[in-house]
């Protein structure tokens, strides 16, 4: 893998094909756990691990997987590796597991993992597939972080609540003071849809602006982003 592919993978994962903003895959866990920054980023990091491992495994084995049964084999590999990651976290990183643990089995239901395995790892070498998995995962991490931050701020007026479980010694920020009554919709499911909707709208605006500012041949960038605008 060369620098060019690396930069392409990174740009695709973090922005151009961002899982949450453009591909809109894996919305169920995304919306369900983004009630606070710590929860959201924790799920994101666990997803990064699983995506990197499963992309690597599928890319390494891709020549042995017949095309006709690739999907069941991919699901088998993802489910097995998720179980292994879950067990390994539980056994060797137990404190982290207490925070991340409930999210790891959820990752199996996250279709973004299957999507990247199918769309990228099945056609590319193990190293760039691993990079793709990590970058797609990191794209999800930052989006989840922003989503969780907004929902937490609106819903309970704090930021980073629960950080003391991840990094002992740090304490949550109380942004609006302790007497903030909390705006419940932030932490409830509708708040997740509203917030993600606003973020997608914002990202589409930035994308169309960027496309309009460029000469004609770059306009395809904007069109690629368009399906997100059409999604309900």
């Amino acid at each position: 893998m060369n620098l060019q592919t690396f930069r392409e993978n990174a740009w695709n994962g973090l922005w151009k094909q961002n899982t949450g903003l453009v591909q809109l895959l894996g919305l169920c866990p995304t919306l369900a756990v983004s009630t606070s920054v710590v929860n959201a980023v924790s799920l994101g990091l666990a997803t990064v691990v699983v995506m990197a491992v499963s992309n690597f495994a599928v890319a390494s084995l891709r020549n042995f997987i017949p095309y006709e049964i690739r999907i069941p084999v991919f699901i088998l590999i993802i489910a097995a590796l998720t179980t292994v990651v879950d067990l390994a976290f539980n056994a060797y990183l137990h404190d982290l597991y207490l925070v991340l643990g409930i999210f790891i089995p959820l990752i199996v239901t996250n279709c973004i993992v299957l999507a990247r395995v199918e769309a990228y790892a099945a056609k590319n070498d193990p190293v760039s597939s691993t990079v793709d998995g990590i970058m797609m995962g990191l794209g999800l991490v930052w989006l989840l972080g922003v989503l969780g931050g907004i929902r937490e701020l609106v819903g309970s007026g704090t930021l980073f609540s629960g950080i003391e479980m991840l990094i002992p010694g740090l304490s949550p920020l109380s942004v609006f003071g302790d007497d903030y009554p909390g705006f419940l919709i932030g932490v409830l499911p509708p708040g997740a849809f509203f917030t993600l909707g606003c973020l997608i709208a914002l990202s589409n605006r930035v994308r169309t602006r960027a496309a309009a500012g460029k000469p004609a041949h770059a306009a395809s960038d904007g069109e690629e982003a368009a399906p997100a605008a059409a999604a309900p």
Partner: protein
Amino acid sequence: MSNRYTATHTSLRTAGIMVVFTLAFTSMMSQTYRVTRPAIEASEQEQKMRLINDVLPPGSYDNTLLEDFVAAGPTPALGLDRGGRIYRARRAGVPAALVFEAVAPDGYGGKIQLVVAVGADGRLGGVRVTAHKETPGLGDYIDPRKDRNKTRPWIGQFVGMSLADVAPAQWKVKRDGGIFAYRIGATISARAVTNATGRVLEYAAEHRDALFAASTGSAI
């Protein structure tokens, strides 16, 4: 003919490969399970012990608590529909406290799993929520780790209470005519935990001697 042959051939080949993959990854999972099981069990015990230490001061007993228990079958009074354990703390052989696994079945989001310590004198050592599905940011203050009031968490109000201080009819949240505080907008979670704690106390008062007398690991 040749077409059918190809179809059969392809089916058998892909089926064979699928079997190989399934065997390989299943054995990988079972190997990982075998390797990690001791570490996982150790940390689960440690985790359980940490919770118990929250409700029962480690200095108040001297037996190996996790090995001295009674296995309770389905017990409606404790909310257990699949059974649970009751640990017995002793000091120099004298009964010191009982630690109950209990369930409040009527939380806003379903069952709330609890650990409740009741001293031999009938006083509550403490209550902790071990698992729940209450609304985040609203009903989850029943778990002191999520309670925004860190100095005086809601669940602390039960410590030291006994049925001698609070009659069973009073063992309710204030809104139901009892004496215990709840937070506006999230009565159901508080009511569920309060009522379940009261039921555990009554159960403990009724069965204390039998529970301490039962042989270790036995079922009641």
